């Protein structure tokens, strides 16, 4: 067994330090060490999107990110979206359109939808289909999921400020996504 290393990173606006094994993934650390089980485990090869989180504002499959890589960085999981107990517009829209069925893929879908809307506040259907293409839903509630993202995109974007934009992504900067249509 290779010696663990201690990493420090910010998770859902909280600073955390965790000793991790070099082969441990971000997904393992979130679920097993930090108890953030909202991020789900399914395919472990970066295909299903159930483990999607934001790493410095960008979506990643946390099963493909080594925990050691996130030292000094910022992670937002589904639990970090409605941090003050109030649902984000995306989460509310998912409820309103009936987008969550069994719910297992939904944390990943919701996180991807946040990133999508942060980058493109008023996406069309095609953009949404592409933006969520990495998130499988076997209940196949895609129509209602897409509707939820459309609905959220036309809602006041109060949740946008909660998502840390990618620093090198101009479209995702706060000034670039000011007003909803």
């Amino acid at each position: 067994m290779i010696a663990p290393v201690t990493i420090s990173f910010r998770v859902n606006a909280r600073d955390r330090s965790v000793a991790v094994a070099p082969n441990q993934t971000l997904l393992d650390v979130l679920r097993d060490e930090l108890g953030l089980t909202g991020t789900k485990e399914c395919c472990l090869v970066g295909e299903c999107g159930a483990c999607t989180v934001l790493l410095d504002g960008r979506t990643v499959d946390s099963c493909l990110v080594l925990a050691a890589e996130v030292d000094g960085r910022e992670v937002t999981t589904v639990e970090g979206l409605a941090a003050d107990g109030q649902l984000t517009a995306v989460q509310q829209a998912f409820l309103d359109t009936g987008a969550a069925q069994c719910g297992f893929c939904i944390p990943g879908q919701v996180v991807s939808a946040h990133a999508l809307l942060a980058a493109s506040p008023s996406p069309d259907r095609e953009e949404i289909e592409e933006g969520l293409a990495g998130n499988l839903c076997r209940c196949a509630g895609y129509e209602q999921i897409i509707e939820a993202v459309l609905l959220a995109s036309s809602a006041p974007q109060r949740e946008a400020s909660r998502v840390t934009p990618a620093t090198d992504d101009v479209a995702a900067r706060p000034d670039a996504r000011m007003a909803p249509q």
Partner: protein
Amino acid sequence: MTDRGANGHGPGASPARVGGRARVTGSQAYVADIRLEDVVHVKLVTVDAARARIEGIDASAALALPGVRFVMTPAELPQPMPRFGPQLRDRPVLAVGETTYHGEPVAAVAAETRDLAEQAAALVRVNCTPLPAVTSIAASLADGAPLVQDAALRPGDPLANTNILREHRYAWGDVTAAVAEADLVVEGTYRFPMVTQFAIEPHAFMAAPDGDGIAVWSSIQHPNWLQRVLSSLLNLPLSKVRVFAPDPGGAFGGKQHAKYEPLVAFMALRLGRPVRLVLTLEETFQAVRRGAAEVRVRSGFRRDGTIVFRDIDADYLIGAYADIADRTVAKGSYTAAGPYRIPNVRILARSVLSHTVPSTAFRGFGNPQQIWAVESNMDEAARRLEIDPVELRLRNLPRRGEPFIPGDTPADGEWADTVRRAAELIGWGDRAPHGRGRGFAVGLKSGPTTGLSYSTVRLLADGSVVVYAGTSDMGQGARTIFAQIAAGELGAPVDWVTVVMGDTVVVPYDQQTSASRSSVLMGNAILHACREIQARLRAMAARLEGVDESEVVVERGEVRIGGERVLPVRDVLTRGLGRLGGEIIGVGEMRKEAEPAHPLGGTAAFYEFNCTAVEVSVDEETGDVTVERHVTVSDVGLAMNPTQVRGQDEGAAVMGLGHTLMEQYIFDAEGRIRNLGAIDYRIPTSMDLPKRMESAIVENADGPGPYGAKGMSEGALLCVAPAVAAAVRDATGVVIRDLPLTPERVWRALRERDGTQQPTGARPR
């Protein structure tokens, strides 16, 4: 309908999903999210072969790793090897002597961490010799094929020395005589591939000693059935087997029956500690799948389109153990002649054992395979008779109340309404836009044939409600429906209702969550429990108001006295309960009795009837099929929650596109699955949706469920494949009889069409 539901939350309205908030915030706890203290992690040990003789298992290297606690092998289990299964007790807890499919566990490692368990599992040396395996219908039925099941396990069974587990024969009229009456006979053979449920939540199991009994956690659809299996295997009374069944993260039939729960239970008892086994997605592919099938269908028609006879001969490739697969064959084939008035029918269906993953229930339960063949046959007949495909169906559909399978439930809906609605939505009479083709099909599935559901409902002192229901909410939204029923009947808002499920010590018995039964059967049990509470409220109100009980009516959450005064339930309750408070408890039961003389053991509680119409375009260069429009219409009786109904219909439709266009297991020459996992086995993503999806429902309130509801969660999947294939034929002239319609298969068919210069239509294979 504009005025749906009571105050926007009762049946007919679409309040937000109960449990929805937990699902969008990540707080919904699935089995793998539950942490047990001091837990030991389990990893399965398998061999890389479809079939192998096990000569010895050497666990010493694994046990030498610090932190490895135990390696369970067949020798460590009670002798003879405990076996279980919903139809036959044929599945061993661990393979003994021989493995019979790729991925069958031969041992299991328990270690302090998951990584360690995985590492140790790779160190368990299994001395084995690969043996010849049969993984196709032809190979299983060939002369001299190795027997998949030891004949000794099938005493008294005349088929014991074959790979046919069972044959099912249904017949009425006289097919042989009817052939002479037919102006046209259409026949063909159709193949349906092995596909897997692919719930996004991989199956997860935990077990822990619990006092003098055991507690088991499983993402299972039938907690009470699992409780019975464990009770029998462990020799414990039912009351000492506590099954926790948290809401499954998708199930689709794949989580109906016990898989590795017995294994983890034996390990927990042996270790005296909680154990945990979370499958990888690859392991779920090796745990559950749908039966593949080859269906030969021959139908006779009069010139006017009247069906004279139908003759079906189907082989289903099931796996190495029966699981519930043979029942899917029996039930899926029983209605195979379709929702038509046919005087002469002969159906033969065989369950063929093979060295493959045991097939089990999967949304549609044996029907999609038959419907693929029979509806494709109808399309071909329409073409050859030069009768419009919609018209051909309408001409043969029974009316509501008309028997169509002798001795079974008559047609329970105005199915022509559904057909006409779908035709109207897609604009059937109009020509499809240039370069596109249209296809049309209907699907029928028999609902549950028996049922038993109990519910307890408690009306608490403040008017809030607790409902106990042994259903599993796997995404179909049962909790919401149940809360709506109780809310509507007892006058509470939906968010004042708590629905308790998934704990066999606390929740009353429910037979199972399958066959789209829960809204109907458990729904009625809840309704009866609420009615019992209403009777108590009526007595209470009569006493309080000094009137005769006959003057009091309690319904829709209100208490009406003498036809004039209306009191809220809560008001009567508070006064009636008095100083000590308390509550009113209602108990409901819903039973659909078995009918031993019936071929399936019971008539259909209801039918699911769906009509699907699609419009496709086909890329002639690549063979790629794009579904431009997908219309799905289901007869649901009454939609208790239209938003959820839509989610189920559209989800089933897209799932149907999966087996129609892309999904299939691929085997190597040795019978190993080559495309395990999400990279190599594709399911529909948001990029694979129809360009336009339209779903609609027919509601005539003619179902046996509360308020006239029927079950509806499978219907929209049933006939997707024949509708799409008919549209591909319409667009290109090629007839394809094997699923899935991959670009490669379509491309080859197009090349063959061009090469042979035949203009359109059916050619013998």
